[in-house]
């Protein structure tokens, strides 16, 4: 029982950054823009969080700074992919490389410095009375709680509100959305920026909660896993939560096996989530070979209004 509890807790703490990034990506991709820059945005979020928290010690200022940086990066991505209609795959890769390089440079002075516990926990001892589940939820930090709220809020937003309907419509058929009076370009800007903020927070969460030391390239491919998660979750926030914790658990599994003192080299154990990513993608591709993937129909296609067909 104890081991299951430990695993679940670990899955949540390791899965939360993935969840934030996947949620951000869902918002962006639902609007019809491919988001491959998650890795770079997460790194920028993490390094910004590290620098501001070490210098100011204030969580609010830190989160605001992370939002600020993410907004700027989101604007760049939106300008390139919406206004200039640049190739979105290249755009995303550029964001990743740019973020990795810049964060490494900015992070030099704080590299390896421990970041004191930044995000307070929401202690609810009375919850422990609830068997099993209670113990998991009794001592989670604020950011994790925020991610729970966000999953529900986004799910409701996408499926139950007029704005959500517009979002789904414009990712599938922007021309139709346009004819129905939905400002496609402006909204795409908005969703790219909002999504980028969430991905930036994913990086901040990784640094502030999960592994409180800045090291160069500390996301180690989590941005890419988030991209894969969006596909597994078929652009749905609730499924994204399940998938994120599943991968979080796998991530943790590697550590646990190592702790037990297994003979397997640690490099192989660290590979587990990535191997599973490949396997799951292969499996899904095979299983859905005759079906639509559930991805937004117009994903990756810039929208131009007055084009002759």
């Amino acid at each position: 029982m104890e081991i299951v509890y430990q695993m679940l807790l670990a899955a949540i703490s390791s899965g939360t950054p993935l969840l934030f990034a996947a949620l951000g990506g869902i918002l962006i991709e639902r609007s019809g823009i491919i988001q491959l820059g998650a890795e770079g945005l997460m790194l920028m979020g993490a390094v910004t969080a590290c620098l501001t928290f070490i210098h100011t010690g204030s969580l609010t200022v830190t989160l605001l700074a992370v939002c600020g940086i993410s907004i700027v990066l989101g604007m760049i991505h939106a300008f390139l992919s919406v206004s200039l209609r640049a190739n979105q795959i290249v755009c995303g890769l550029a964001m990743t490389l740019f973020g990795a390089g810049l964060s490494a440079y900015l992070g030099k002075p704080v590299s390896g410095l421990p970041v004191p516990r930044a995000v307070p926990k929401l202690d609810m001892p009375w919850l422990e009375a609830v068997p099993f589940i209670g113990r998991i939820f009794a001592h989670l930090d604020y950011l994790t709680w925020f991610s729970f709220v966000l999953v529900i809020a986004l799910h409701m937003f996408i499926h139950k509100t007029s704005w959500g309907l517009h979002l789904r419509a414009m990712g599938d058929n922007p021309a139709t959305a346009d004819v129905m009076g939905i400002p496609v370009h402006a909204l795409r800007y908005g969703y790219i920026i909002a999504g980028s903020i969430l991905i930036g927070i994913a990086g901040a969460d990784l640094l502030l909660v999960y592994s409180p030391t800045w090291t160069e390239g500390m996301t180690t491919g989590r941005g890419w896993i988030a991209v894969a998660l969006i596909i597994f979750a078929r652009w749905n926030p609730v499924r994204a939560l399940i998938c994120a914790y599943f991968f979080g658990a796998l991530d943790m599994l590697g550590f646990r096996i190592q702790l037990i003192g297994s003979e397997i080299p640690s490099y192989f154990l660290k590979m587990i989530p990535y191997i599973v990513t490949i396997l799951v993608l292969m499996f899904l591709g095979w299983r859905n070979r005759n079906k639509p993937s559930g991805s937004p129909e117009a994903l990756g296609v810039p929208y131009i209004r007055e084009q002759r067909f």
Partner: protein
Amino acid sequence: MHNQYSVEMRQIVKQFGSVMANDLVDFRAKAGQIHALLGENGAGKSTMMCMLSGVYKPTSGDILLHGEMTKIKSPKDAIRHGVGMVFQNFRLVQTLTAAENIVLGDKSSFWRGGRWLKNKQEEIEAIAQQFGLTFPVNRPIWQLSVGEQQRVEIVKTLYRGASLIILDEPTSVLTPGEAEQLFTTLQHMKNEGKTVILTTHKLKEVMASSDHISVMRKGKLIHSMEKSATNERELAQLMVGKELGESMPLLARTSGKRLLDVSEVDVYAEQGRKSLDRLSFHVDEGEIVGIAGVAGNGQKELAEMLTGLKTWKNGAIAFNGEPLTNGSVRSAIEAGIAHVPENRMKSGLAGTLGIVDNLLFKSYRNVERSRFGMLRISKNRAWSASLVQQFDIKTPNLDTPVQQLSGGNQQKLLFAREIHQQPLLMVAVHPTQGLDVGATEGVHQLLSEMRENGKSVLLISEDLDEVIKLSDRIIVIFNGQMVGEVAREQADREKIGMYMAGLQNAEGAAG
């Protein structure tokens, strides 16, 4: 003063680059009438209507709605002024349900809970019932038939309070039964005092359904009149600007040698289902063989098999005395089989490339066109220019992306490329789909010219009139099998229709 016209467009000019799509057009329509805007493809009807619905902005000219000067800046603006348009390619989101599509532009409520949705559904169903439209409200669009999708589009405009409803080529995608139903709906709308404008190139429909008719040709409005003051023949003349030929002259059939001999072949679809089932037929030199049948009975697979895009199992195919290589496009081309595919922009032409590149697709290996792997640029341009002239392709220049040409000119370009290959057999699939009367005539001319030159044509078409008009022999396929064969002299629509519906099997004819 009350203006009797609900919509008036004055001196409208619209230019796309150097192409003049509308040239000083005056158009007026009254409320409580069905107004047909008749014209060939590329005559500028859709462009006119797109300006009314805010998709395009006129280069110059005025639009008056109910006698008042109106600037329609966007589709949203058009809706605000009560103008709704049902496009030829539906503007529906495939993954959303019919109801969600209809309420898409609705700004009345941010929260869309169960109760809100239920109210809206009732509202939508009431509108649908009022105008005699039926469709499943809660199913995603991709599960609906084309006719149902169109009904969703119509209800969408009505739901948004449109008093002027424009339908762009509404029947081009419908079965005759569905078209019938549509016209009943249009009558309902007319009786409710709405202005209905439909653009079309089908004369029969215009005569059957409209009250007032305006004819457009080459970007200009030629004539506008009450239906009672005209007839089909006059309309056709106005539309094409020339007399129409009745039908192809019947030539004595060349008792040529056998060119294509297909015997007992099977083609399998993806799930192990047979799309062609022990199909046997032959084509002689210098004859046009028409393949008639309802869509989805193996026509597509038949064309793909002969042109090397699909492999066949069992049986054998002989072409020009030699066995045809199974599943090789290149050897089919080299053997002399030309292909005019079903969807010209999908598998016939590369839309963003220019005329020259598109013409080169099948002949670039030729020494005339390339040497040591390098294309002979200036030579190819001169060659393309001569083909453009020979086939009368209307294009601003040789580098214009072909997607900007009208459908008729695209098809001419495709024919130019294929005929230039000097094929022995032309496999033409729906060669006149989406083309106007003039362009259709041109395509028919090209096909019968091939026949006069001793070449053969396998004409696969859903348009029975076309098949009967052109073919020497008509083969009807149903469920991948040949169910009937009729010579042109005995061609009889009713009989062929029975074969097509699978209601009758021709005894002995299939063997």
